[in-house]
């Protein structure tokens, strides 16, 4: 049975209020902005966001009042600096107070691996000597090691280059903490640039990110990661990050941005009509040489 549905349906069915949601797991690339914006439109509340760094998406969800807690290593705008909604939430409780569980990039990966392997925690030598464990109850120091408590997302949301209707997802480029987020999560939502036949995904099983049993929804969402880059499809849209940094500096500016780019739009297809797609489309393709899976 096909798992293909619209983003509105996927968020409606699989991202309830209060859910723990992992996103942005490939760091600066393949960020599922379309999924995050749909969560804002559906007025999700009390989400716990989990990720390594978040290049603006978490800032937007926080500004929209969707988030109760963030478990992450870094939160801001990678090319521009601070996350202004994040600051307003932490410093002034606007639009609502936010709980922060700080990690490093290494420790958030370990927290997800611990959940993936069903152990309560994993030990590491990173974070020794740092004050980060003193503010995060998920980190403790004993026997000369830092013990990183498992973080188990209810749902991981990823954007990939291609997937089939059963949710076999192919992504390429650096993966960040995508695999451990998917394995740790109870369920995975996949959005993709290209919806392809199973013949394509199964021709290269090494490239399939997650077991299909984890994936509950497949959304064909071209441009679903904009303004983040998608190898082979889109460059990073630096100007959009710059404009967002400027507009979100004030609460009123952010609210204007939110109306224009999220609330007044029904879906991602309408959003992409407002983007100068030709300026960011990757034109020169460099496909890899196929692997030979022959057996006789």
């Amino acid at each position, binding site marked *: 049975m096909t798992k293909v549905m619209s983003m509105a349906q996927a968020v409606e069915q699989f991202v309830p209020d209060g859910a723990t949601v992992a996103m942005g797991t490939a760091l600066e690339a393949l960020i599922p902005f379309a999924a995050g914006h749909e969560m804002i439109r559906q007025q999700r509340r009390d989400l716990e966001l989990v990720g390594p760094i978040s290049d603006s998406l978490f800032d937007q969800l926080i500004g929209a009042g969707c988030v109760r807690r963030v478990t992450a290593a870094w939160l801001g705008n990678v090319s521009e600096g601070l996350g202004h909604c994040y600051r307003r939430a932490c410093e002034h409780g606007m639009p609502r107070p936010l709980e922060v569980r700080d990690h490093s990039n290494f420790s958030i990966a370990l927290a997800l691996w611990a959940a993936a392997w069903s152990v309560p925690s994993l030990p590491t030598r990173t974070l020794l000597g740092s004050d980060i464990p003193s503010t995060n109850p998920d980190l403790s120091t004993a026997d000369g090691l830092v013990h990183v408590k498992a973080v188990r997302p209810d749902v991981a949301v990823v954007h990939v280059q291609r997937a089939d209707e059963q949710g076999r997802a192919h992504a390429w480029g*650096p993966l960040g903490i995508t*695999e451990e987020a998917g394995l740790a999560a109870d369920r995975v939502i996949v959005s993709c640039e290209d919806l392809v036949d199973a013949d394509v995904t199964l021709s290269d099983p090494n490239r399939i990110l997650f077991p299909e049993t984890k994936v509950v929804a497949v959304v064909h969402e071209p441009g679903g990661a904009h303004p983040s880059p998608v190898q082979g499809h889109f*460059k990073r849209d630096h100007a959009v990050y710059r404009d967002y940094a400027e507009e979100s500096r004030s609460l009123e500016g952010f609210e204007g941005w939110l109306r224009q780019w999220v609330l007044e739009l029904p879906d991602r297809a309408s959003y992409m009509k407002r983007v100068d797609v030709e300026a960011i489309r990757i034109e020169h393709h460099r496909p890899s040489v196929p692997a030979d899976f022959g057996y006789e």
Partner: protein
Amino acid sequence: MSSYTPQELMVAVASREIRDGDLVFVGMRLPILAYAVARNAHAPTARGLFEVGLMRDQPASAFLGTMGDPPNVTGALWATRMSNAMALMAQGQVDLGFIGGAEVDRFGNLNTSYVGDPRKPIVKLPGSGGGADIAILSRRWVTLMSHERRRLVDRVSFVTSPGYGDGTPGWRKRNGLLGGGPVAIITTLGVLRFPEGGGEAYLQSAHPGHDVDEVRGNTGWDLKVGDDISETSAPTESELTAIRRFDPDGFWTRGKGH
């Protein structure tokens, strides 16, 4: 000698910290350019490692706004998961790391988390990212920062990425930190260096056009001056050419670059 911006000087100085053959945990912003400059000059066999999950030899052939931009992936030596890049660092195989910071203190501890009480911060900064991991696990590291009294402070109120802790001899070893610690703080005014074995930063050189009094006056502690204090060598023509090739629009080095 053509004119240059403070950021171009910082990139040139940072590139000189990279030794040939080093595996460099590159990070973001100016260090991306520093790696490209070094690789094209005195460090032709250096390799770059990026926490997103990439290893490269040649620098990317187009501008990078982030380490995850598509030009950084094309031609990579390895595209992988973050845990694998961290594994190399945990094994002591990363020779040099770069870390950005909002605040640094006399013992090289960095704060990128909170200004004020973490429970009610005056400023919430973005956080560690990979910074704490680099500070703890890489063999040596360097930080780059705008030289202001509010940034170079006596002691940071929150240690995101540890340097030499309280500055007592052997602090890192006693606390189980694997890597060697910070070796330099490169600022918009000068280069601060740490003694062999760690401890307190001292002024090694002031940049051209800046003197010792100005540097000390913009530092939040009584900055010691090295016996062999000198003027920082200005960027060479070839360094500037390389910087401008990799940052053609001055996004990092002629705009807000920090």
